[in-house]
């Protein structure tokens, strides 16, 4: 076997024989399924059939995901504990009460230690922001110094940031109900909320490949795009006050939002990852390609990772676009209206379809494909942000 494969001798969950089921895994399954069932039992009367289906699907997905990727188990536990603390603190002040109003909520957030400094959605999101940016610098420091332990710190920062981000979203979900029961909704409804989702999902996809490819040296590159998202989020918060929880516009008040939006952001996150791997590829390529004592993985490995990310993104983006079309059919009366957002989703899809055709069928590799992946991120960003900023249409709730 040639040396360039050494980084990936230990694939995760690749072959059944390689996996040894631990008692922890069993515990994981019991806990997740139990929690899913508990939520179902507690909120059953507030959910329609579709929402029950989505809850069951989400529970099973999380259980499976954690089974094959053990790091998810720890993350889930951390998010559960931190969200639990938030719920407990809110419970101390408000009991089972909902609709306590924004003022009462803000007052409690201002005086309770845990809420003020850790787990209210706003604090958690600030922690997330700081940790992602910190991780970016740490990864680059690790890359420059070649110090293994600094890389480990960087990974830990990303895990922590992701845990805070998810906690922030979970808590925000609760807070929306605390402001007013009518306001209550899953926090994936506007640009502010989906930027958090984007950062978290991109980080998770990266962490998955970090574990699988056994290299932390790409971390800085991927964290750059996450830091950019964090930068936007902070500007959006402090300049525009976008962090205030708003009620849903009628068109968004649908169970479809719960599946359409996350599926879309797996796509966006994977495309962003591919682009940043593309950047790493191009830098390495310009610096003379593979050498003896490289920091970055071999070009072939980068190329392969880029493909994997785009394939993953393409799959989820396809599903998300189809779900979006089905939702549109229900909300707007047509599964396809050539609305700018829809059309740009199609453009993104066509772009990556062309990329995949060239790679898989024509066997294109290397720098041109890396460039294309980078350009693809600009196309994707326009579909995600630009459409809302510059074009008017049915997706107008995403406007800046």
């Amino acid at each position: 076997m040639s040396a360039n494969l050494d980084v990936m001798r230990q694939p995760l969950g690749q072959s059944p024989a390689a996996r040894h089921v631990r008692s922890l895994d069993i515990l994981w399954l019991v806990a997740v399924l139990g929690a899913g069932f508990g939520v179902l039992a507690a909120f059953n009367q507030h959910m329609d059939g579709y929402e029950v289906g989505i809850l069951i699907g989400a529970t099973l997905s999380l259980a499976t995901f954690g089974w094959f990727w053990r790091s998810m188990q720890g993350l889930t536990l951390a998010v559960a504990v931190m969200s639990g603390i938030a719920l407990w603190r809110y419970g101390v002040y408000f009991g089972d009460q909902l609709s306590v109003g924004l003022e009462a909520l803000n007052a409690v957030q201002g005086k309770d230690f845990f809420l003020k400094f850790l787990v209210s959605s706003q604090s958690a999101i600030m922690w997330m922001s700081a940790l992602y940016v910190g991780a970016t610098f740490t990864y680059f420091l690790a890359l420059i110094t070649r110090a293994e332990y600094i890389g480990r710190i960087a990974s830990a920062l990303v895990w922590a940031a992701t845990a805070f981000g998810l906690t922030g979203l979970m808590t925000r979900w609760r807070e929306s109900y605390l402001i007013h029961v009518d306001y209550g909704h899953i926090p994936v409804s506007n640009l502010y909320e989906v930027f958090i989702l984007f950062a978290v999902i991109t980080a998770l996809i990266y962490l998955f490949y970090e574990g699988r490819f056994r290299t932390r040296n790409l971390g800085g590159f991927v964290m750059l795009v996450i830091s950019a998202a964090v930068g936007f989020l902070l500007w959006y918060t402090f300049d525009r006050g976008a962090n205030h929880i708003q009620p849903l516009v009628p068109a968004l008040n649908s169970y479809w939002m719960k599946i359409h939006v996350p599926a879309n952001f797996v796509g966006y996150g994977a495309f962003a990852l591919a682009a940043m791997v593309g950047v790493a590829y191009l830098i390495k390529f310009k610096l003379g390609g593979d050498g003896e004592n490289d920091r970055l993985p071999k070009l072939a490995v980068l190329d392969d990772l880029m493909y994997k990310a785009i394939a993953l993104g393409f799959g989820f983006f396809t599903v998300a676009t189809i779900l979006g079309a089905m939702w549109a059919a229900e909300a707007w009366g047509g599964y396809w209206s050539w609305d700018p957002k829809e059309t740009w989703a199609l453009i993104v899809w066509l772009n990556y379809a062309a990329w995949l055709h060239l790679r898989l069928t024509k066997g294109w590799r290397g720098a041109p494909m890396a460039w294309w992946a980078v350009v693809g991120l600009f196309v994707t960003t326009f579909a995600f942000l630009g459409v809302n900023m510059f074009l008017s249409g049915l997706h107008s709730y995403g406007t800046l």
Partner: protein
Amino acid sequence: MAFLGSMNLAIILLVAVALASVIGTVLQQNQPYGDYLMKFGPFWFEVFRTLGLYDVYSAPWFLAILGFLVISTSACVIRNAPGMLREMRDYRLHAQEKSLRSIPGHAEWQVPVSVEAAAIEGRRTLLESGFNVRETRVAEGYLIAGRKGALQRLGYIFTHVAIVIILVGGVLDSRIWLALRELKGDLVVETRPVPVSQVPPESRVPASNPSFRGNVNIPEGQQSSVLFLNVRDGYVVQELPFAIEVKDFRIEHYINGQPKSYESDLVIHDPASPNKPVAQTISVNHPLIYKGYAIYQASFGDGGSKLALRAWQLLGQSGAVQDIQGAIFQDIPFSLGGQRYTLELNDFRLFNINPVEGEGGKVEQKNFGPSMVFRIRDAAGQAREYENYMNPVVMDGRPVFISGMREQVGAPMRYLYLPADRDNRLDTFMAYYARLHDPERVARAVQAMLEEINPEAAKLPAASESIRAMVGRFVEGGYDAIGTDLEKRVPAEQLQQAFETSVRVLQTVLGRMYVELLAERGIEAPTEQDERFLADAVTAINALALYGSPIYLQMTGFEHIQASGLQVTKSPGKAVVYFGSVLLTLGVFMLFYLHPRRAWVLVRENESGARVLFATTSHRKTIDMQQAAAQLRERLELRLSGAGGHPLAADHA
């Protein structure tokens, strides 16, 4: 065929569709043609119109690209699918030893056991790794052939067939049926804004039209059995086989005033089942599906709300009042001062949620209450648009009646603020305004003022005359009129000073007349609030010079009648598109996450037992595949060495 099914053509088409799609998002589609004409000018308007850029996605050239995409994709499938299906079924059981040896990464072992025993080891290894296995006898031994992930090729077929299916489904639901009617000459697009009853038969589409997507606004309590389909710069009327009645339309609001839901109570009156009208409430995201027709809550609007109006005359005999009854969509002609006008009542809004900068610069959403939009058109056909709020709105701490005005559609509104009095009414302002139009009152006030401040001048009729004229100018034309007049009479270097003096004198007169009015109303000691009223009233009178309406129209009451905006669709292609979508999803994941591989174990007897030759291939040369190949080889080696085997040769490619 080779060209049509070629990858190059496919890539070109994918990129072409993407680029063409961009045009339709940059240039807003299906706007009124007048807007395009204004934007691009006559030359480019015509060029863009010819290119079909105002409705790119229905343009023949765009449909042609999509057509080519269908043909190219179909050709691709037809060309490749048979081979792929054959490949999927085939285990390659006639692989020759020589060809196995030419596969990179093959390996060979000598095992001191029978061929049968060695074959079992080979077979087990492949089965353990998830291969489907077949075996055959060959000279002096066995060939075991395995394959896995063969369904990946089905993924290829699924995705490509799915694209064709989705596009075909899309065509079924497209405007192609209308286009065919137009082509045959059965359909003429109506461009006049006329009532439905006057739309001629050639602009109507019968209910048999297989697919459509149209809109209709139905006022509460009324029904409709037609829809409107917008076509280019006009529309056609789509007939329905049933009538939709809107019993009630409701908007629910969040506590901050934002709309929470739109709902309509519908009743379907179907001649096919006259005794069983279907009643259902629809809302956004919850349409009614009736006999394959889907009825959606798309929008809402006014359904002809009844308004109680008070017209305050501004010109001539100002202060005169007339109460009138009207309804939205009604035109009311009137004449004033020998001029003929038409009042066109256009819209009524119950809520107006506007952002207001509150304390500390914090922007808050505030409800300004009901408003109406109307136009006043003069005999020459020129119109201005107004939006008047019914109730006074508190701005900068004092209540004002707000009226927006614009001279052109699409121009930003400019606002007139008329101060409300202590009773929150318009009466005091209007009474005051009327006073200023009364020459005798003005003359008396001017005379009284002169006598008080300058008894000498009071004796000169010219002084009094010129001040009265100035007041008149202000009332008719605001400060600008005074300035214009002074420019004619005063040298430039004294203009500033003359203007300031005039304004001081004017304000004194206006103040006196205001105090007089207050006194008549029993107010002897004006408060600070009354003083601010005066300042606001003077500002308003100055602004009224630009208001351009002979009346001020105040809404005093209303009966809100809403119209529910429904979208009705018949889309036979939907099921087809959804089927294609499921196929596409399955196909995409099969394509990316199944990895077709083959493996062979050839076992041949020799003098010291059996010789085992192993080789594996995958049609994608990815890192994962190389790694999986190495793993499989190691696993086989482990098994064989357990049976006492040792490697003979290996190709470490």
